[in-house]
């Protein structure tokens, strides 16, 4: 048996794209939902050190997280000559390998695979044919519902409804917008705010509820 890692039971590894097209509509409510439910989002962009080897950093995040959310909705190339993106599928493979081959608390890991449409990923990644996945249609409220319900299906009890979390996220965004503007933030500062800073503001808001 491996030694118990601090925070393991509450850590949630997020494997998703980091571009604006994903960050603004989907990553923000995803992070908000995880924190609202009492968990700790862990993501590759939570720290930045050019001297750190990326794959080692990701492996450590995976190993130290009981829960993992892999959003594969952006792996497909969208236009001619655009290279399809393999990082997300690769990191899902590391996560499943960690669960399968390490004897320790890693055996208790829980994995959520997300896609835009329900059956599309199984055509590209047929090894997932026997696995349950959830889809969100690129709609933030559906994403919130998928994540909230997944935690409930894995034992979480007495949590707010998905609708309540989504509406609270909207209220948070209004407070976030108003207060940051008062502090001198510009729209471009808010749109692609570094993830650790955004997490800080969510936690601060929830603490004051």
């Amino acid at each position: 048996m491996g030694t118990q890692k601090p925070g393991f039971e509450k850590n949630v590894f997020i494997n998703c794209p980091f571009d604006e097209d994903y960050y603004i509509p989907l990553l923000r409510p995803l992070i908000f939902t995880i924190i609202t439910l009492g968990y700790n989002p862990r993501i590759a962009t939570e720290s930045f050190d050019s001297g750190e080897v990326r794959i080692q950093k990701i492996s450590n995040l995976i190993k130290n997280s009981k829960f993992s959310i892999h959003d594969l909705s952006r792996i497909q190339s969208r236009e001619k000559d655009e290279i399809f993106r393999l990082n997300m599928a690769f990191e899902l493979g590391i996560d499943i390998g960690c669960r399968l081959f390490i004897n320790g608390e890693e055996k208790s890991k829980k994995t959520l695979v997300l896609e835009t449409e329900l059956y599309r990923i199984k055509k590209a990644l047929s090894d997932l044919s026997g696995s349950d996945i959830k889809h969100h249609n690129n709609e933030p409220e559906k994403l919130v519902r998928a994540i909230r319900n997944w935690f409930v299906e894995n034992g979480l009890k007495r949590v707010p409804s998905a609708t309540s979390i989504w509406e609270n996220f909207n209220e948070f965004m209004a407070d976030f917008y108003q207060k940051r503007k008062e502090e001198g933030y510009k729209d471009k500062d808010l749109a692609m705010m570094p993830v650790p800073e955004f997490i800080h503001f969510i936690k601060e808001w929830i603490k004051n509820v």
Partner: protein
Amino acid sequence: MKILTKPKRGSSPVKKRVHIIKREDGWAIKKMGASRASRVYGSKEEAVKGGQELRRSGHDLVIHNSDGSIQKWEKSLN
């Protein structure tokens, strides 16, 4: 698990607000701090129109984009 309903405000003056929020079943009007939306409309235009009535009773109207960000913030009419 505590349900998030009544945010405390920090240094900003507390003003009553009403939010226009995208929902899977339409566009909802939700007063700040209420536990649930007061009404859901079929379209955003209808919801904004409904929200305008609350502006007259001292609420700011916060119109959200479908991703939850702020499209427009209209101050109360009194």
